[in-house]
């Protein structure tokens, strides 16, 4: 019995041994989500070692930040997690506001929640679609993009951009919502809600999908915390942390009065999982399936938050408030703020020396830490599992390489 316990079930060894092979997955590989390069050492189909090589998309954003004012740097945050640029804008704006001890107007607060949660849906849709692609099914990808396009249309109305918005800015927003936007957003949510079942049918409950993801890349909560994994990756391992509820006061204050349940498995149940497919028998907490499912639940959660935010926003009277000056003087000091972005906790660290230009800016990216755990998860898996595992971490290279 003890012998059985000693065996690592994940690592399979054969009597038939062949020469080890070193293969390069990426940086131009179809399933590495951008310019990620994975070096695999394989014995046949089994990956004995995997090492990510990053930096192909390094654009020196932090160095550039030392030469721009805080508001000028916002477009650079867009280009970090370019799939959730609104969240990036928010993270940086909040960090600067925290240093300035500035509070945005009530209306701007609700508008921020609205926009950010909408962007979270868009980001998770890409994550979901691309994950299907990683597992070899193409159709869900286009289904996801079809809906994402509608969100991008809404964003385009708001700020004129479809990918790099720079909409949320230090001290508020660059503009208020155009007339009739709320109705269009409402219409989108109404038609989007039933479609989620479609995704569950195509992916979440699909037998092959479950076979490909269940018990693959199991990340224990200890390991997840140890590696600094955050976001859906951490919650997929069953750790109940969501900065919207547990974060710093300036961030949680933004969500004051909002009702939401953190998408994490508690006592064998996900919040309102009665509405959604049951957890398959094969899946164990912390595997790829759970990470994927947490994202799917967060889409529903975000839809709910968007509806609440729309309510509150429309009830707010008065002006949105002007954003701060482009070259607002920053008090000397330093501050660090993490926000809950779709990919995980994105932290911005800001050091100032009393001028309007920061002395040092630092972006702590969630994908960076999430990806760092992938060599551990991929040890002993099959080649086909590598895209499945890396895809389930849902990394964005723009954020990792900055």
């Amino acid at each position: 019995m003890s012998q059985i316990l000693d065996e690592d079930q994940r690592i399979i060894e054969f009597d038939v041994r062949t020469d080890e092979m070193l293969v390069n997955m990426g940086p131009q590989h179809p399933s590495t989500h951008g310019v990620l390069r994975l070096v695999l050492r394989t014995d046949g189909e089994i990956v004995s070692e995997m090492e990510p090589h990053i930096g192909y998309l390094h654009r020196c954003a932090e160095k550039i930040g030392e030469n721009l004012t805080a508001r000028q740097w916002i477009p650079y945050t867009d280009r970090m997690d370019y799939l959730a640029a609104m969240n990036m804008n928010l993270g940086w704006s909040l960090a600067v506001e925290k240093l300035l001890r500035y509070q945005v107007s009530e209306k701007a607060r609700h508008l921020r929640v609205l926009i950010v949660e909408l962007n979270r849906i868009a980001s998770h849709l890409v994550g979901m679609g691309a994950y299907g692609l990683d597992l070899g099914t193409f159709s869900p990808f286009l289904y996801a993009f079809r809906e994402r396009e509608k969100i991008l249309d809404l964003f385009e109305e708001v700020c004129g951009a479809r990918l790099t918005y720079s909409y949320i800015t230090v001290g508020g927003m660059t503009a208020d919502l155009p007339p009739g936007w709320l109705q269009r957003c409402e219409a989108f949510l109404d038609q989007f809600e039933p479609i989620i079942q479609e995704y569950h049918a195509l992916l979440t409950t699909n037998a092959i999908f479950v076979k490909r993801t269940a018990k693959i890349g199991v990340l224990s909560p200890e390991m997840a915390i140890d590696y600094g994994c955050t976001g859906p990756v951490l919650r997929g391992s069953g750790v109940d942390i969501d900065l919207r509820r547990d974060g710093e006061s300036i961030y949680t204050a933004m969500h004051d009065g909002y009702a939401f349940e953190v998408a994490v498995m508690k006592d064998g149940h996900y919040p309102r999982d009665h509405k959604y497919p049951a957890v398959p028998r094969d899946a164990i907490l912390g595997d790829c399936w759970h990470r994927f499912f947490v994202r799917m639940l967060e889409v529903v959660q975000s839809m709910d938050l968007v509806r609440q935010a729309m309510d509150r926003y429309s009830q707010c009277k008065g002006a949105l408030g002007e954003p701060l000056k482009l070259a607002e003087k920053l008090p000397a000091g330093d501050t660090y703020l993490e926000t809950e972005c779709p990919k995980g906790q994105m932290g911005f660290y800001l050091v100032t020396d009393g001028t309007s230009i920061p002395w040092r800016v630092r972006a702590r990216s969630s994908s960076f830490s999430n990806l760092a755990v992938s060599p551990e998860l991929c040890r002993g898996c099959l080649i086909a599992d590598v895209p499945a595992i890396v895809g389930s971490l849902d990394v964005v290279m723009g954020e990792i390489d900055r």
Partner: protein
Amino acid sequence: MRGTDFISELEAAVDGALVGRDLDAVDPWLEIAADKLLETCRWLKDSCEIRFDGLQCITAIDWFEPDPKKAAKVEWEPHTEVVYHLWSTKARASLVLKVRLPRWQGNEQGKIPELSSVVSVWRGADWHEREVFDLSGVQFNGHPDLRRILCPEDWDGYPLRKDYEMPLEYHGMRGR
């Protein structure tokens, strides 16, 4: 637990670790002696009541003013500061540690400062330390695999240092 209690506990646990503090800043921080860092981190993670089980971020700040005119006006000595942002899952609390290092080890130009690695405490420190090494030039002793991470392996210099100059050319490509 109150902050002051925590500090006295830390002082008791790791003798001579705490060399500075600012509890009134936007983010209160503690300054740790460079040679006591590893011990302090161990204690913070394993033994103290609020277990800081997550390392969120490591940042190195280069306090150096290349412009001699401005340099004359600043009130700090040139140094490198390494900042650790810790997080406790249990208490949902964060902690900021700062470590002050010389810009160059023994003031010897080109010899990067050394600091003990905390990879043995938090595995997540691995890539963060590599990034700090890569961009700001801090040697982490005890790191299992300290290589450049974002820049190419044969890159010269540490880009996030204030006196860094972009090379004129890299493998035949124009730099400036």
